[in-house]
């Protein structure tokens, strides 16, 4: 979803000025990102949906506080993240990884899966449920600090800066984690995805 700061700003101004119904249009382009980020943090669909609704309401109530320093979606996602963190705190869920602690100092020597024949992008295979399931499982299996990055950067296609702002970490940390996450996914997925590679010619993507 291409961001359009001017359009967002105009819409926000009108909502605050009283055209409340426009809030629906404002939040709609963000709702997928909100839900996926919350699902990644809360790991529960019903809870993520409830938190998404709560996030939308908080965004509405705090709209006058948006200063336009970040993109609207980035601001919305940081509200979603705070909502998730406060729920996790309340639940006193003890988890092995802290959400905020940067644990990027572990030596990240990931040996990639070596294979030479899978190069085509089997996008048409996404029509089959198995491929989607495979990808989701691999992403869900990532440690949380990596999963959040992948979700915002690779799934929601936010840029590095937006991802860093939404998660409250540095751009450097985003890059390091993104690299580790992609390496883990490549190692996990490449051998399995080979089965989905199209048999015919017609490469969708080859290195230029």
């Amino acid at each position, binding site marked *: 979803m291409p961001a359009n700061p001017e359009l967002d700003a105009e819409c926000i101004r009108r909502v605050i000025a009283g055209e409340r119904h426009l*809030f*629906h249009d404002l939040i709609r382009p963000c709702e997928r990102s909100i839900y996926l980020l919350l699902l990644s943090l809360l790991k529960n669909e019903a809870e993520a949906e409830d938190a998404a609704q709560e996030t939308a309401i908080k965004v509405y109530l705090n709209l006058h506080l948006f200063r336009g320093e970040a993109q609207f979606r980035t601001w919305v996602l940081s509200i979603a993240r705070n909502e998730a963190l406060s729920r996790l705190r309340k639940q006193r869920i003890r988890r092995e990884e802290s959400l905020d602690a940067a644990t990027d100092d572990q030596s990240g020597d990931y040996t990639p899966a070596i294979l030479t024949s899978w190069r085509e992008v*089997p996008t048409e295979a*996404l029509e089959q449920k198995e491929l989607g399931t495979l990808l989701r499982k691999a992403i869900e299996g990532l440690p949380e600090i990596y999963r959040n990055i992948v979700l915002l950067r690779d799934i929601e296609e936010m840029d590095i800066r937006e991802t860093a702002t939404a998660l409250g970490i540095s751009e450097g940390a985003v*890059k390091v984690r*993104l690299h580790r996450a992609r390496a883990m996914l*490549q190692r996990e997925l*490449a051998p399995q995805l080979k089965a989905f590679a199209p048999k015919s010619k017609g490469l969708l993507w*080859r290195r230029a």
Partner: protein
Amino acid sequence: MRIDCKHVWQHISAYIEGDVDAALRAEIDKHLETCEICSAVLDSTRNVVILMADDRVFELPAGFSQRLHERIDRELQFGGS
């Protein structure tokens, strides 16, 4: 500077992002020309990235959007100003 496979792997993500400087990019490109393994690693990593961006991988629960907007409507109608 000659770089080896491990060195290339370290920069794969940044390479895909276009976030390596010209000199390093040239070195990696040179390496890729002759290294079948690194080419395959690069291609499969890039393929994973492309696949993840497909909206069909993660879908919202059925009715999610409708329920969200109904909730917003309730707030808009009955909430504070």
